[in-house]
């Protein structure tokens, strides 16, 4: 493997996978919560929350990255506080995970929200008349029924996180072994003469991972949907 891929490139692939997995795993519970709130609750600020969630989708990624630097950098108003308790995000792989999570969040929430809206609220009503308190209605009826949607949302978010570039490079830069993810590595290889071959190999890996994620998502959602519907 190392003959075909330089250790540096291989490191970037592994880092990207780690960053994306963490980004998805850490943001998934919040994603489900926000999707549920947007789908089922009417509250003041509903539109504002919806806009906020979708903001990374429409803002230039560089802007998102810069805003992250302003808030989560060592001098940022959250970053400074985190620094005191020993957590540093800027120019670390954890920061890359944060940037990826925020950029992928809209896709995740959209997929999960669609799934929640497809669940008939009448089923949840039925569960409550059978004695189930609200949280249990969610855990025993809503959650199992939206599993395919959560799966789809998670895998979409993973693919998006794998490809995140603009916000990541602005927030955590492009440090090999620290914050150089797969797209940053491709970018770096293209900057040096003779780097095209290495870049092309990474592009191939990116395509394979993205396709595999899509197929896995399709297959899993179908499998889960079939098991849930009992057919």
């Amino acid at each position: 493997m190392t003959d075909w891929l330089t250790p540096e490139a291989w490191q970037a692939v592994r880092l990207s996978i780690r960053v994306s997995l963490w980004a998805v795993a850490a943001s998934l519970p919040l994603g489900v919560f926000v999707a549920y709130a947007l789908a089922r609750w009417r509250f003041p600020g509903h539109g504002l929350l919806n806009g906020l969630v979708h903001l990374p989708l429409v803002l230039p990624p560089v802007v998102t990255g810069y805003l992250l630097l302003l808030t989560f950098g060592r001098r940022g108003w959250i970053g400074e506080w985190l620094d005191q308790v020993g957590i540093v995000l800027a120019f670390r792989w954890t920061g890359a995970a944060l940037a990826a999570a925020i950029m992928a969040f809209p896709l995740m929430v959209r997929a999960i929200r669609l799934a929640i809206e497809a669940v008939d609220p009448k089923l949840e009503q039925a569960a409550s008349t059978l004695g189930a308190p609200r949280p249990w209605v969610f855990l025993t009826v809503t959650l199992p029924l939206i599993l395919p949607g959560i799966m789809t949302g998670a895998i979409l978010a993973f693919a998006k996180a794998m490809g995140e570039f603009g916000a990541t490079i602005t927030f955590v830069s492009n440090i090999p072994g620290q914050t150089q993810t797969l797209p940053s590595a491709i970018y770096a290889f293209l900057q040096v003469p003779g780097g095209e071959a290495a870049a092309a190999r990474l592009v191939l890996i990116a395509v394979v991972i993205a396709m595999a994620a899509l197929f896995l998502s399709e297959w899993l959602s179908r499998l889960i949907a079939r098991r849930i519907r009992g057919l």
Partner: protein
Amino acid sequence: MLTVTLRHAFPGFQLDASFQAPAGLTALFGHSGSGKTTVVNAVAGLLRPQSGRVTVGDMVLTDSDAGVFLPPHRRGIGYVFQEARLFPHLNVRQNLLYGHWFTGRGQQADLSRVVEMLGIGHMLSRRPAALSGGERQRVALGRAILCHPRLLLMDEPLAALDQARKDEILPYLERLRDHAGLPILYVSHSPAEVARLATTVVLMDKGRVSAAGPVAAMLSDPAVAPLFGMAETGAVLTARIEAQEPDGLTRLLTSAGPLFLPRIAAPVGTGLRLRILAQDVMIATAPPRGISALNVIPAQVHDMTAVPGGVLVRLQAGDQMILSRITARSADVLGLSPGVPVYAVLKAVSVAPGTIGVSRG
């Protein structure tokens, strides 16, 4: 005993209903849009009324004056919806035991008893998607009963089913009414269902209760009965199977005298409830001779009410009431007036088997 007083304003619709539902099955009857489902949802706690009070026995579920509003899951009320609303990701057994997780009530013995009563033992491991509409509704009924509710709500549980499926479920509802010993509030817009199942009838119209009372009195009341629709107007008779005759007839005993109907497949001694449509009853002033109708019931004219296209005559036979709809000319020719002794003539085949209900009383 369930007591309900509700007031709630919707855009373009005002609910202002008050009634009591004693033991047995109370039918909430009215046209669509009369507010029946709204009432049931308010009793279940799915709708919070602007003002009102709902109590079951000595338990207060809603009391707007005292600021009491129990959430649905703390009411202990079983609710059977029009569409069964079974959980698609759970099999029949898990659906049946869903309430058990939360109430902690309901033992294995209850499950077997309910499963047997509803005849759903062979489908316990199946998913709802693999069930027919009638089967789903039976499971939904079982699921509600297994929570051991203090009150059972049913919102047109048969409306989405064809006649064959209805006939399949009606006996279970009769058994439930007669043996489960819990009050049932049953929304319906089918006069046949009301006549067959109800103990008490609450008539709703435009968000208000327009009449309420025991089923026999309500269905034979000339002022109320036409609200069910003229073709559906008919009194309810209670009877008991006395004998199965060798020529294919069943001999019934009623307080109005014997009655012969085509064979009813039930043991001797079974209590029955028959719906006799007013348009199927003829009136004679002398005992008719040479006539094919088997049932000639001596009676007395109780009162007469003019209705569109004729006269609705209420006849007293024994301690029961029979309604007959005849033309004004016939009433004139026969010289009918209250107190006149007459004979009510009824063809044996005019009572449809599907409308005959079984009752313990």
